């Protein structure tokens, strides 16, 4: 709490204030989209989309430097690449007979490889580390506005189509029989995922973003009985992880992204242990009984 007061009152810590606010704003989108990803079990798709984003960032940096086009920012490259991957995955899942996990692996790795190559080709020195693992010093005021807008858009869409999105995640076949175009809702969910991923790239980086999409909802699902409470709890947890992670990184001078993810991970494993404690005790008990 002291940390929060300090950040918001000390004008020299304005960068921290921006990344905290960015984290809190994006938590809304992360909690909601993440809940869908967890219940629909498509975190591997989200992983492929998020890693392929590096390709877009690298390409944007390269084009922008090479042809001197300042308005092509790494951020716009990231948005384009993530939406492109989302549509590609949706299209392949719908029409191709290819095994989905092979395709996702390909999107995942070629995106990253392309990104690194483009960054290497870009004139001048660019450190890919800040894109891969995040850098809380990079959030600007403009970013903050964009994040707030995108996050509200995602939440609004999810709110508007909630019944259909939940139903399509639960039983696609049934809705198809009733003439509901479930493919459209799948695409909607993938594009929501693509946009959500971009929101926190600055803070936790491409590699670990999948954790922010899955760990808060996965922890929340252990503690809630319906989808609504699960997504609300995910939002709260997500914001809590961002605040405490940045707090830890500030206090002990540690990298911000990993501190956030580590907090989320420790919390998740604790919840997992506490909610399955009886099962573990019973299992160990049986183990010893059998030995006697």
């Amino acid at each position, binding site marked *: 709490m002291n940390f929060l007061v300090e950040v918001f009152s000390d004008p020299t810590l304005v960068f921290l204030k921006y990344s905290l606010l960015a984290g809190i704003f994006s938590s809304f989108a992360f909690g909601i989209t993440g809940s869908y990803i967890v219940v629909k079990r498509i975190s591997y798709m989200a992983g492929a989309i998020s890693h392929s984003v590096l390709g877009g960032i690298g390409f944007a940096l390269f084009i922008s430097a090479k042809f001197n086009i300042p308005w092509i920012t790494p951020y716009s490259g990231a948005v384009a690449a993530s939406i492109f991957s989302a549509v590609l995955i949706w299209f392949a899942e719908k029409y191709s007979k290819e095994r989905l996990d092979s395709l996702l692996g390909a999107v995942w790795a070629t995106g990253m490889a392309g990104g690194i190559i483009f960054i290497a080709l870009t004139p001048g020195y660019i450190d890919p580390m800040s894109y891969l693992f995040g850098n809380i010093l990079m959030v600007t005021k403009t970013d903050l506005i964009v994040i707030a807008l995108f996050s509200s858009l995602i939440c609004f869409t999810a709110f508007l189509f909630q019944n259909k999105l939940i139903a399509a995640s639960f039983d696609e076949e049934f809705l198809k*029989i009733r003439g509901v175009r479930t493919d459209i809702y799948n695409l909607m969910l993938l594009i929501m995922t693509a946009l959500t991923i971009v929101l926190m790239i600055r803070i936790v980086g491409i590699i670990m973003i999948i954790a922010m999409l899955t760990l808060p909802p996965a922890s929340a699902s252990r503690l809630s009985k319906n989808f609504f409470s699960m997504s609300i709890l995910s939002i709260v947890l997500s914001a809590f992880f961002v605040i405490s992670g940045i707090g830890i990184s500030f206090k002990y001078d540690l990298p911000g992204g990993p501190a956030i993810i580590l907090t989320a991970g420790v919390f998740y494993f604790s919840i997992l242990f506490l909610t399955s404690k009886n099962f573990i005790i019973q299992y160990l008990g049986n183990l010893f009984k059998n030995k006697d």
Partner: protein
Amino acid sequence: MKKDQIIKFKDVSYSYLPNSTPILENINFEIFKKEIVCIVGPNGGGKTTLLKLISGILKPDKGKIEIFGSSPGENGEKIGYMPQSVHYDNSFPISVKNVVLMGILGKKNLTSIFGWYSKNDKIKCKKALAKVKMENLIEKPFYALSGGQKQRVLIARALISDPEILVLDEPTANVDYETEDNFISLLKDLNEKKNKTIVMVSHDMGFVSEIVTSVFCINKTLVIHPTNKLSGKTIQETYNSSSIQLIRHDHRCSDKGHIR
């Protein structure tokens, strides 16, 4: 008087993989309004596949299917489909209420663009659950229910839209005797008072003979039997015999007299 033909299969074949042995071959039948058809047969014989062809989830490789005179999928809202409860994710956080309300979502009604449920929909949901005696568990999470309770919820979901045809995949698996009894009278009621056509898969022969008008025994192909000859012995023959593969027991075609 000519009866209304609801479902028609003409020379239908289906295989799950291209160029492999078909799971259903040259299936021909017609189902008329107000019939109760029960599909029986060995595991892997194609019972569920047949239901999926009727409901339009699967498209036939060969042959033609007509539901109310047009191809399956176009009349999806007239079908109340109940799948087996085993294929559901056992940790999906959704309430009984929301599972049943799913049965209202569709392409035609006005609220369907966003899929918001009206007050009337919620009343229908309660009524549908009351029919299967599950109204007390309306707020419970679906995953917390027993196998039989889940099935009753899925039946309620199939009933909520008041469909013309009920397509039920093993509605009586996992349920106790009393529930089964209630279920039989529910089907009887829907059939007699509301003129519903019912197509279902069942392993339970006792259940089958009580209310059904036709029995389809399915194992890849179709052979026809009159119902009045249906006995424990013929059924045993169906399941064990390699020569008889799909047998249809039917009042209507007893004049064909093709029983051995």
